[in-house]
Each structure stands twice: as C-alpha cells, then as structure tokens.
C-alpha cells in the first residue's frame, strides 16, 4: 500500500495539470463548440514567454503577469478575432482544421520570434521544487507539487462556481448551443465568445507554466502530447462537466505514475506506455461512455439555416467546352511532364518530383477519407509508417521484393486502420479525429520504436525494387514506377467515387440518418473507406521509403500527420488533382525553404501551411479549387451573372 502511495502521490500534480487543461478544453468546447487542439500550443506559448522573461532576469511575478495574466488571454483574443469567430457555425471538420493550423503555427511563430535554442530546466512558478515542505507517509512533498495542487484546486473551484452560478457562466453555456440565439436574447455573442476565449487561454497558460518544470527542456511536442491526456480528462467529463473533468484528469495523472512505477523500467514498452496511456484511456472512454458518443456527434443550432449553403465543387460548374479543353490540356501536360522527367530534367529534380508524387498517394488517402466521406484522420503519416516498415521488414527478413511489399504494406495498414477506426466509428467526426491523434502519438512513442518496426530514430532501410529483369534502382525508372502506382491509386479512388460506394458516401456526408433510412449501413461503409484510405497511405509510405531508401520514426511522426491534413485541406481536399497539387506544393515549398533560405527560417513552411488552414476556414473547398472556380465564374461566365439569378428556397 505504501509503495502504491509513493507512486500515486507524485502523480497528483500531473493529474492537476491534466485537469486544468481538460477544464480549459471543456470550457472552449462548451462556449465556442470548437475542440481546440491548439490548446497545448497555447500552454507552450505561455511557458516559453515565462521562461524567456525569467531568464532575462525578471522577477517571477512580473514574468507571470506578462506570460499568463495578460499574455495568455491576449493570445485568446487574437485567435478568437482572427480565426475562431469565423468558424462557429461551420462543420466539425472546418473547426478541427482551423485548430490544427494554429497548433502548427503557434510554435513555428514562437521559434521565429524567440529562436530555436534549447531551453533547459524551465523555472518554477511559485514554491521552489527543491524545498521539501512536509512528508506524507514518508514521501517528501516539494514546493512544485504543492503549488500545482493548490493552484489547480483553487482554479477548478472558482471556475465551476463561475460556470454554473453566475450570469457570465449562463451566457457561456448558452453560447455553446447557438450564438445566434444568444444574439436574439440581446447579448453580443462576440463579446461572450471573447470572454470565454480569454478565460480558457488563461487556463492553458497557467497549466503550461505550472507543468513546464516537469520537462527537462521546453519543447512544443511535449505540450502536444499533454493534450491527449487533457482530451482524456475532458472525455471523462463527457465534454460537459467541469467537476468530472477535474476528477478524470487527477485520476489519470495518478494512474499514469502508478503504472510507470510498477512497470519494469528500461524497455520500450514502459518508456512509451506513459505517453500512450491517455490514448488507451480515451479509447476505453469512447467505448464505454455512451453519453459521450451522443455529445460528440451533435450539431444542433436551431438557427443553422442562416448560414449560406456550402459552395459547389468547381467541376460541377464547368461548361462542357471548357471541360473538354481542360481534359486535353491535362493529358498533354501529364505526358509532357513524364517525358521531361525521363529525359532532360536533372536527377535531383526527378528525385524531388518523385517524392512529391509518392506523397500524393498518401494525400490521396485524405481526399478519399475527408473529401469524399467527410471523416478526418490525424494519423495518416502513422499509416504511411506502418506501410513503410511492413515493406522494409519483409524485404529485409524474407527478401521479398518491394513490389510485393507495397501490396502487403497496403493490406497491413488497412488492417491497422480498421482497428483504429472501430471504437470511434459510430461517432465519427471529432471522436475519430481524437482517436486517430492518440493512435498517432502511441505509434510515435511505442509502435515505431521497436526494432521490428521502424526501429526508432535509427530507422530501417528499404531497397529499391526489381521486377524480373527490370531494375528500378535508378531514380528515373523508379519515377516511372511511382507514376504507375499513383495512376492505379487514382483509378481506384475514381472508381469508388463514380460507383455505388461513392454515392453512398455522398449520401452519408449529406445526412447519416437519411442514408441509414435508405438501407446504407453507415458503420460498415465508413469503416471500409477508412481501411482503404489507411491502405493507400501505407502504399504511399512504402513507396516513399523505398525512394528514400531509408526511413525512421521521425519521418512519420504525429506532427507530420497534422501537417498532412492541413496541407491537403488547404490546397483542395475534394478533388483527386488536389492531392497531387498538395504533394507538389508540399515538397517544392519544403525544398525551397530548406535549400535556399537561412536555417532560422526553417519554420516558415509550417507558418505558410498554418496560415493556409486559416484560408481554409474562408474557402473550405481549398485554395486551388477556389482559384479555379473564380476563374471559371469570372472569365468564362462573365461575372457569374447566372449564379446571381439563382433563387434559394
């Protein structure tokens, strides 16, 4: 028992931080209906500013004022005014992408502002962690732990009281349901929303500064991982209840430490299990808390009809002559492109373009999943990783050709996809996003560390394939192979779109209930598409690995997955060509940034794509799709006069 307590008591402060973050998430979700995945990044921002101020010799209280009391709410105001105000009545997907954009942009901007140097041993906020104040059952309680627990308990109490018993709290709760109805009650929804953003950002900042000393050095990824624990805490409170979220966070923190204490140290499983534990808890909650599923599927603003309907896809507006011209143009371009790559383009560029096209296959999996079936996955890079190691290990141990390996990669990744999607499937939307995020982090921390998978950061090597007498070891021949595989993948996706499944998906995207009422099984259709999408990502990952000839866990980490989603959403997630354009844009921009700009600009790419996510909020059809439509309307149809004449019921 005493051993149990000696593990459990140090877990309490962790639990408190999870609870703080979880309550912040619930608060934002309740008031703005945004599940703020950037919450960890906000915590990181405050912790970083606090660190910088203290190391500049500021007194702690002044640093706290700047970073948490003023800085954090200010950041909240900025992201509300600049972003989330515009997404309130948008679908879950748009909100998630907006939050993802922030999650990527905030650390990138901070890196530009404060430099990328390592920041070791972050300072503590209040009581010194090196002073032992008293002992509980012989365990020393230091100042850091004590201040964390006291601050969290006080904040949790005040917040719950405020939320449930004051007028401000009442307004915030009303906002969650319908900002427009709040307006009709004579209240400025903007002002209520801003208040809640300030409050939740304050919580994020506070949690960030409190937790920072726990990490050896300040890194944004630590804070992103913290988010999964916070999500699990919020899930324990069914995304509604602040007290239960608090309890959930505390229990999670304690369990994590207890688990860490009893597991043998030193192997991959125990070092990875701690970050992976919240994932397991989250999945368990998804499976066993039926109330949670209901909450996460909801969109019930009675005034949602005030929003304009989503814009149609440009291809539906093309007139036949233009369509024919585009088709001919595209064919000529593709042939010219392939021929050029095989002849006069330099090897370096062929390699780069091959990378882009291999990634396009991964991106195609997002077009299938997100664009065609309206689901979101935050672990496509992990599926690509699964594909890469499947092909690589098969080649290494069984001397299997990569060509066979690629097929195996697709199959294995698809199977893994089924396992990931099963628990979250009935809800879709947000729950699926969170389950896949957690899975991605689990893969980072445990799955990809084993020598039988990606072997951690040391990585594994993948040979180039041979097919009988044909050897694909040269970049040019491999380029051809990638083109062929890409064409097959496109053909599959197109066949699905035009066939029965595509129509079923379109029906599901419109209304799951209506689709179910005409005999479509939503669960089965969605899981099928999810598996296929995971399989495509696996194929793409295997090809990408074989092209690079070696891959490691860092090539497929969660941040990469997040960037993938943002890139594809920004460029155009509704069309097949969007995936290819996204692949090209990603690789070419990456090349540009790494080769021709100074290293301090390394985060520029993230900023660009993060900003792209903001554009996505305004134009969910994607930037290129938007430009295309703009061109069609204004060049061909003469100012879109016909569009003007349409009357909506």
């Amino acid at each position, binding site marked *: 028992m005493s051993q149990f307590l000696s593990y459990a008591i140090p877990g309490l402060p962790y639990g408190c931080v999870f609870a703080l973050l979880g309550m912040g998430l619930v608060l934002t979700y309740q008031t703005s209906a945004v599940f703020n995945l950037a919450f960890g990044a906000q915590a990181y921002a405050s912790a970083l500013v606090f660190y910088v101020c203290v190391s500049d010799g500021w007194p702690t209280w002044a640093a706290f004022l700047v970073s948490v009391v003023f800085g954090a709410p200010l950041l909240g105001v900025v992201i509300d005014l600049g972003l989330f105000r515009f997404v309130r009545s948008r679908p879950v997907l748009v909100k998630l992408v907006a939050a993802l954009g922030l999650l990527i942009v905030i650390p990138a901007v901070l890196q530009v502002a404060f430099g990328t140097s390592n920041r070791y041993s972050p300072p503590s906020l209040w009581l010194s962690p090196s002073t032992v104040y008293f002992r509980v059952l012989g365990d020393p309680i230091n100042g850091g732990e004590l201040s964390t627990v006291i601050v969290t308990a006080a904040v949790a109490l005040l917040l719950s009281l405020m939320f449930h018993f004051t*007028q401000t709290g*009442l*307004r915030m*709760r*009303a906002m*969650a*349901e*319908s900002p*427009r*109805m*709040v*307006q*009709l*009650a*004579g*209240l*400025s*929804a*903007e002002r209520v929303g801003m208040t809640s953003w300030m409050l939740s950002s304050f919580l994020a900042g506070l949690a960030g500064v409190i937790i920072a000393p726990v990490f050896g050095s300040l890194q944004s990824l630590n804070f992103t991982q913290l988010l999964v624990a916070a999500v699990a805490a919020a899930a324990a409170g069914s995304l509604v209840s602040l007290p239960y979220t608090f309890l959930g966070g505390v229990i999670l923190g304690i369990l994590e430490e207890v688990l860490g204490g009893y597991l043998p140290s030193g192997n991959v499983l125990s070092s990875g299990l701690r970050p992976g534990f919240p994932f397991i808890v989250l999945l368990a909650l998804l499976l066993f808390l039926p109330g949670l599923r209901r909450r996460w599927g909801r969109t*019930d603003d*009675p*005034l949602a*009809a*005030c*929003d*304009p*309907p989503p*814009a149609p896809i440009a291809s539906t*507006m093309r007139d036949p002559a233009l369509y024919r011209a585009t088709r001919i143009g595209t064919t000529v371009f593709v042939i010219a492109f392939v021929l050029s790559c095989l002849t006069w383009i330099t090897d370096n560029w062929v390699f780069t373009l091959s990378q882009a096209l291999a990634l396009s296959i991964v991106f195609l999996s997002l077009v299938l999943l997100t664009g065609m079936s309206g689901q979101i996955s935050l672990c496509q890079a992990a599926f690509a990783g699964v594909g890469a190691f499947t092909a690589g290990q098969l080649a290494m141990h069984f001397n299997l050709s990569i060509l066979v390996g690629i097929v195996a990669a697709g199959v294995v990744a698809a199977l893994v996809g089924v396992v990931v999607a099963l628990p979250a499937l009935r809800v879709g939307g947000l729950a699926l996003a969170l389950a896949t995020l957690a899975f991605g982090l689990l893969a980072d921390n445990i799955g990809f560390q084993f020598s039988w998978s990606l072997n951690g950061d040391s990585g594994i090597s993948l040979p180039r394939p041979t097919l009988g007498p044909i050897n694909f070891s040269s970049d040019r021949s491999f380029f051809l192979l990638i083109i062929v595989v890409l064409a097959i993948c496109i053909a599959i996706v197109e066949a699905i779109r035009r066939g029965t499944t595509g129509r079923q998906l379109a029906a599901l995207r419109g209304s799951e209930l209506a689709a179910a009422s005409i005999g479509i099984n939503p669960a089965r259709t969605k899981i099928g598409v999810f598996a296929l999408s995971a399989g495509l990502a696996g194929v793409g990952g295997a090809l990408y690995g074989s092209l690079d000839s070696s891959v490691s866990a860092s090539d497929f980490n969660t941040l990469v997955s997040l960037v993938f989603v943002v890139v594809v959403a920004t460029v155009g997630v509704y069309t097949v060509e969007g995936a290819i354009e996204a692949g090209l844009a990603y690789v070419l921009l990456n090349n540009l940034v790494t080769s021709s700009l100074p290293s301090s600009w390394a985060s520029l790419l993230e900023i660009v794509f993060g900003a792209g996510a903001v554009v996505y909020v305004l134009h969910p059809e994607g930037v290129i799709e938007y430009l295309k439509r703009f061109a069609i309307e204004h060049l061909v149809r003469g100012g*879109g006069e*016909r*569009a*003007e*004449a*349409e*009357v*909506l*019921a």
Partner: protein
Amino acid sequence: MSAPGAEALPAALQFEHVDAAYGRFRALFDVSFTVPSGSVTALLGPNGAGKSTVARVATGLVPSTAGRILVSGRDVTHQPAWKITRLGVAHAPEGRPVFASLDVEDNLRLTFLSQLSRKEAADALERAYARFPRLAERRSQLAGTLSGGEQRMLALARVLVVPPRLLVVDELTLGLAPRMVDEVYRALRDIRDAGTSLLVVEQQIPRALELAEFVLVLRKGRLVQARPASELSAGLAEEILSVPAAPVDGSS
C-alpha cells in the same frame, strides 16, 4: 403601403427595397413594406418564398445586401442582431426557439437579465411562471426535453412578461396540435394587447387572418401582395398559396 391611423407613430418595422442572399443564392428581391405600430401583420407565401428570410433580415440574423431596414424609425440596416434586439425587437425563430441544453429557468433568466435589473428579472420570472404554470412545474427541466408546444410557450413567455416593441414570429404553430395552436394564438393576442406590434410568418392562413390586420404575400423572393386583411378573401389567399413554388433553376 401606408396604414391609416399610423401617421403619428413611426412604423414598428420598415423594409425599403431590401435584397438578401445566402452566399451566392439570392433569397429576397427588392422587398419593401411597413409593419404599422401596434398592428399585426401576417407574412404569407408558399414554401421557399423567403418568409423566414424576411424574419431573419428584420432581426439582423441574415445581413441584407441592399436597401434599408428601419425599426421604430431608426435605421438598423447593418446592425448586429443583439443591438436590434435591444431596440425592442424580439424574434421567435422557426423550429426550436429555445436553448435545449439550458433548463427552463435559465432560458428565462438569460433573456430577462440582459434587459432588466436583477430584481426586475426575478420579478419577471415570477410573472412568467404565473402566466404559464406548466413552465413553473418544469423550471429545472432541460428545455430540450419539453414538448414542442411547451417549448414555444417558453419562447412566448419571455416576450409576454417583458413586452417588446416588435415581435417577429416564424411559424410558431408548425407541427403543433390544434389545441396548442389555440394556446399560441391566445398568447399572441395577449402580446398584441400589451402594445407590441407583430410580424407573423404563418402557413395556416385562416388562423393568421383571424389575428392580422395587414397581409403581405411573398413569392419567389418578391413581395406580390400588400393589403389590409379585410380585402383578402380566404379564397384569394388559398389561390395565392396554391401556386407551387417555382422549381429551382436546374439548367446550370
């Protein structure tokens, strides 16, 4: 259209050549009308004519793209909904006009506290419960679990106790049992008697004509009739509404 006897007071609501659109889709074309102060005006029209859009534009939920909107003589054209509400315009929207996730009492408190002092709000709450004992019984029940009729009573209770200058009602009787429809109309009558002007969007034409003094008829986003209710025979009204909504332009 000018209403006899309304010259003294500015019109409760006035549309001047108003256009409105949802994104690319135009919903209203050059709509002009007045709701004279203290009167009940019914807004009729087939499905998809733009009735709800008129209601939403009047309270600022959907922005107008051209023209002017005046509330009690004040230009509110590009004002946000909450400011228009504070000028004394209440809007009971179509469907579910209450906060489903708040309990009955919180629904009432939210509105009262935004208009009244704390003490007046408590007083208003008591009066609302006195008028609708049913709501008092269910004061701590989530509004989403009330029946459709009770939800609409709740929406009207907010208005009855603190009478606004203008009430916009959007198909409040849709899907209700006849007895509940009677109750809704009784409450609307009470609200009118308290001096509130009403703009009533309605599909049950006979019921609307019992209450209304003026009638507006919309079709395909345009105002096609505006006249005193007495001039509109029931037969003519039926004829207006029997014209099917124009098919959406499918040639694109």
